[in-house]
């Protein structure tokens, strides 16, 4: 089976620093795929390379076999790639509903003339967009807040709004950059349910997360980066035992001691 989203030899150099170093990553359809690694491992840079906000030094990004490397971010979104940001980037002055409607931009077809003349086609489209936006808001539990100014939402609500906005056009892949950051345990638990629902809707999820419990709970596949290099790709359980992953997180000495202890305690 060929992967839904793939990076081939993806590399990004920042003035001598290899932030992402020839990463070959394959994200399979209908999975929740986690991207983890210590701080500065290149996770966010990899996200920016995939979504088109950063230009790669080398390598390519493929979605459903199609090479996206030369396309700007907005074209990639139109082709089914969506993302959220580590620091929330909703449109604060807009209402919650308007935020989601903005996320539906790729589904719009009405031109300038139809807009000014308020043609029946324009009205129909606008009604359909609002309907769709309400469905997505319902999914994240923000229906009651639809007319609220987005900046007035609580932190957790803003995170959910950002996910709703990204999910609005029904993307093939959703990139979540640290979705659980700053959330309390109850909010994190709700987020796990939301990510499962998103996968159930046929959207593949690729997420960066530091909350290892969250990653273990939710992901089917884990990719581990360290110093820009892919050092592990496999199941979450496998990642827990892989010596190179332990080493990346804990350093060589601690990892060796842990491995030693594990050997002694096992029959």
């Amino acid at each position, binding site marked *: 089976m060929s992967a839904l989203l793939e990076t081939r030899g993806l590399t990004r150099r920042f003035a001598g620093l290899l932030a992402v170093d020839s990463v070959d990553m394959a994200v399979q359809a209908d999975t929740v795929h986690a991207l983890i690694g210590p701080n500065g491992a290149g996770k966010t840079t990899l996200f920016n390379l995939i979504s088109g906000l950063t230009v790669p030094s080398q390598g390519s990004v493929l979605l459903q076999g199609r090479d996206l490397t030369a396309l700007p971010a907005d074209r990639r979104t139109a082709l089914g790639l969506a993302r959220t940001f580590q620091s929330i980037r909703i449109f604060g*002055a807009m209402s919650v509903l308007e935020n989601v409607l903005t996320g539906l931009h790729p589904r719009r077809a009405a031109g300038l003339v139809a807009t000014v003349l308020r043609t029946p086609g324009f009205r129909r489209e606008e009604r359909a967009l609002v309907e769709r936006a309400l469905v997505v808001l319902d999914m994240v539990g923000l229906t009651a807040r639809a007319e609220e100014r987005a900046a007035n939402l609580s932190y957790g609500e803003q995170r959910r709004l950002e996910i709703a906005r990204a999910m609005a056009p029904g993307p093939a892949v959703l990139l979540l950059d640290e979705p659980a950051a700053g959330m309390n345990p109850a909010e994190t638990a709700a987020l796990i349910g939301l990510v499962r629902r998103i996968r159930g809707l046929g959207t593949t999820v690729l997420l960066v997360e530091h909350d290892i419990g969250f990653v273990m709970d939710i992901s089917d596949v884990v990719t581990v980066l360290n110093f820009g290099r892919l050092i592990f790709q496999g199941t979450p359980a496998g990642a827990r035992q892989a010596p190179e992953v332990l080493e990346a997180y804990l350093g060589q000495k601690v990892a060796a001691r842990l491995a030693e202890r594990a050997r002694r305690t096992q029959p």
Partner: protein
Amino acid sequence: MDMPVWLDDFLWTYQNLVHALGINGLLALSMYVVLAVGQLSLGQAAFMGLGAYFSAVMTLKFGLPFAIVLPASCIAPMLFALAIGVPTLRLSGVYLAIATIGLGEVLRAVYINVEWLGGALGLSGIPERADFWMIYGLLALAIVALWLIGRSGIGRAMEAIREDETAAQVMGIDVARYRLGALLASAVLAGLAGALGAHSSSFIGPNEYGFEPAVTILSFALLGGIGTPFAPVLGAWILTLLPEVLRGFSDMRLVFNGVIIVLAVLFLPQGLLAVRMRRRAA
């Protein structure tokens, strides 16, 4: 068109001021369109000058009917906007502002030095073809069109670009295309104002379209705000009426504009009409 006698008298007495209010309203809208996508242009006066000179030449030298002159003098500044916008709008920052200041100064030098365009004396004896109804009809049309555009997916995309360019891009919005579209629309509106102005005041000169009027046009939008199309028009009307009220200080007009910009930026960051329009049509 028939109108009550008192209105006829009023318009006759204050014709210049009444026309200036309508024309400055159009200029304020041309500024609004660019600011609405988070760009700063100081070329509104230059685009207006292009409209004015093109229309005056077409009327005076070629004797073309106003029905042709008016649309043609919108297209001319639009082509200049295209030439400036394509290289600068892909870059973020102040490149557009710098390029448009440059355009204004280059054009001023051209007007002054080309004898055929009247040189430093400008062009006079332009027939009065723009009347009250034409000016205010077009202003109303522009306000309604911008209002309808604002309350649609196009308005949402424009506000998204202004608020967060990167997030807008990730929403699938072609930021460069929207910015170019806004600049072209603003050039059309400014060109229209220029042609109407030339055919209402009967005289145009090179210094009417330089850097100072560019800043004045910017202050229309800064004072009024850009929440709705009404806001910059209100700003334009206040700043057009102010020197009439303070007639004794008319040499200090620019000082007043400067003070108003500073006060508006400090105390009224959203402008006088800080109402935000709803961005949906359903």
